[in-house]
């Protein structure tokens, strides 16, 4: 049964099975009945603050049920949910607030924004339940997710209720999960992947277990054992952490899983083969996706066989093409840009019609990724047509980091590149090449790193700093990043 929206599906699930566990968080079990009550209470709070359809609600994405209540209460009131990473630096939070002009700001952080700050706890304190509500139309904007693209400039990706519904339905068709499943979500909830898994499970009437990242893999193992979890969503960096810390012990637990969904960054061939060998009865799925077009290509490692390194085939209900520089469809095997169409496609960027137009090709979304499709419909990734760095699944625009580094005293210029190291856990590691005004006056690395941590998300802070006399440049002055990538320092 396909409902009109995620929020409607969650309400219907609560009517059918009010006592069923919707969310497990630190051993607290929250039923669908309680979840709906909490959403309706939070909706009363939002309404009391003057929130109406189309208003933006900016709130901090903490990994707890309060986040879920606020997120779904936005949808119930017709407001637009603008969740942000709770580790985002203050400057970025202010930037988002300036861009979206919210009706309310909810976060457990005291920063000067020009808005009254409400806490997450405050949002569920109402004793009243919202009774007068209607579910949103499919074209209404549900979410506004901020990412920094290739230019390093923060942009808000609008997702309609149809987009997020289609993302959930398509994923469920491919993975084959249903209401009887219990899934562990160790991923952050402000991120498109984690948020999609949350929606997907609640829409199905399944149970989700929220766990704070991969720092303590024992918590994940315990959840599998205690709650008989049947699925998990995973990023390659998280899997690397688990393998590194727990060695092969993960097999004892993961072999009980019905499915895993990987995403956000590439997984190495050896890891894929290891998973196939170690987990013969688990559907090991991996998606290729972007915030703008959800998970649009899927593969399953057992079934992929010798094409285990393909991105996979177009997701159910999604169309994928490869086009050349003129927008013409490429022949099989010919490399071009991956473009995507379907109900998952974003209506565009917030207040940015130019970028919306730039990324659109007659209704298809231009991903900026290069690839080709073989005769059997398998899509293969060939690279990005820009300098983007992928740190553990998080896309980082070098320009954003470079701009911040260059504000540090004594630094003349710099260039950042992704460096893929043997045994690296994060995919790419960021390496900053720095030219000083006076090469005898090297900054103290700890101080420079601290400076960057105050201004950038943690994963954007370079792991390595290399001081050089000058940056290699083309005749037009563009930094030759390929040369820097090849430098082994």
């Amino acid at each position, binding site marked *: 049964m396909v409902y009109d929206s995620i929020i409607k599906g969650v309400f219907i699930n609560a009517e059918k099975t009010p006592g069923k566990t919707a969310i497990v968080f630190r051993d607290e079990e929250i039923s669908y009945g309680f979840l709906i009550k909490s959403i309706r209470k939070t909706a009363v709070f939002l309404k009391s603050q003057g929130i109406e359809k189309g208003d933006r609600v900016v709130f901090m994405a903490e990994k707890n049920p309060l986040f879920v209540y606020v997120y779904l209460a936005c949808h119930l009131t017709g407001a637009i949910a603008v969740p942000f990473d709770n*580790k985002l630096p203050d400057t970025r939070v202010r930037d988002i607030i300036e861009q979206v002009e919210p009706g309310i700001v909810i976060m457990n952080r005291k920063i000067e924004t020009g808005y009254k700050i409400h806490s997450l706890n405050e949002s569920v304190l109402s004793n009243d339940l919202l009774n007068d509500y209607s579910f949103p139309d499919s074209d209404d904007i549900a979410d506004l997710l901020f990412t920094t693209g290739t230019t390093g400039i923060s942009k808000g990706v609008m997702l309609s209720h149809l987009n997020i519904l289609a993302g959930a339905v398509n994923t469920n068709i491919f993975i084959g999960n249903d209401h009887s499943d219990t899934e562990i979500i160790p991923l952050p909830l402000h991120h498109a992947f984690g948020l999609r898994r949350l929606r997907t499970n609640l829409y199905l009437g399944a149970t989700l277990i929220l766990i704070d*990242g*991969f*720092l*303590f*893999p*024992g918590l994940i193992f315990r959840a599998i054992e205690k709650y008989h979890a049947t699925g998990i969503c995973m990023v390659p*960096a*998280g899997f*690397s*952490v688990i393998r*590194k*810390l*727990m*060695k092969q*012990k993960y097999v004892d637990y993961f072999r009980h899983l019905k499915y895993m969904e990987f995403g956000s960054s590439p997984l190495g061939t050896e890891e894929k083969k290891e998973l196939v060998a170690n987990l013969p009865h688990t559907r090991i799925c991996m998606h290729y996706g972007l915030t703008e077009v959800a998970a649009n290509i899927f593969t399953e490692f057992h079934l992929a066989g010798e094409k285990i390194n393909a991105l996979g085939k177009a997701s159910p209900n999604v169309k994928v093409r490869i086009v050349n520089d003129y927008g013409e469809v490429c022949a099989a095997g010919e490399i071009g840009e991956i473009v995507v169409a379907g109900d998952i496609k974003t209506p565009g960027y917030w207040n940015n019609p130019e970028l919306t137009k730039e990324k659109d090709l007659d209704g298809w979304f231009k991903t900026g990724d290069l690839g080709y499709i073989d005769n059997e419909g398998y899509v293969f990734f060939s690279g990005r047509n820009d300098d983007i760095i992928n740190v*553990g699944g998080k896309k980082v625009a070098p320009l954003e980091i470079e701009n911040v580094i260059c504000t540090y005293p004594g630094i003349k210029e710099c260039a950042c590149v992704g460096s893929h190291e043997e045994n690296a*856990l*994060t995919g790419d590691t960021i390496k900053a090449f720095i030219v000083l005004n006076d090469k005898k006056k090297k900054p*103290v*690395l*700890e*101080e420079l*790193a*601290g400076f960057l*941590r105050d201004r950038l998300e*943690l994963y954007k*802070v370079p792991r390595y700093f290399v001081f050089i006399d000058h940056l290699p440049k083309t005749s037009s002055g563009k930094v030759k990043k390929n040369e820097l990538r090849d430098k082994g320092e």
Partner: protein
Amino acid sequence: MINYVYMEIEKIIRETLLIDEHQIMNDETGPADIDSWDSLGHVNIITAIEEEYDIEITPEEIQNIRTIGDIKVLLASKDIHPR
């Protein structure tokens, strides 16, 4: 008495996580207190300690490490003494 093992552990953590001297550390300090002590930072700390003391930390032992104090207890259990 100066606890050299503690100083060494603190030094390893500061260098691994690129933390400056203003960050105060004690036995109770853990991931909740230091932003860069995330899952990858945790792996890097464990790896650095394994290399520094030429030991192997088992998955069972790793599950008990939540704070700097836990690392000290672990090292003591492996009979690692101040230099």
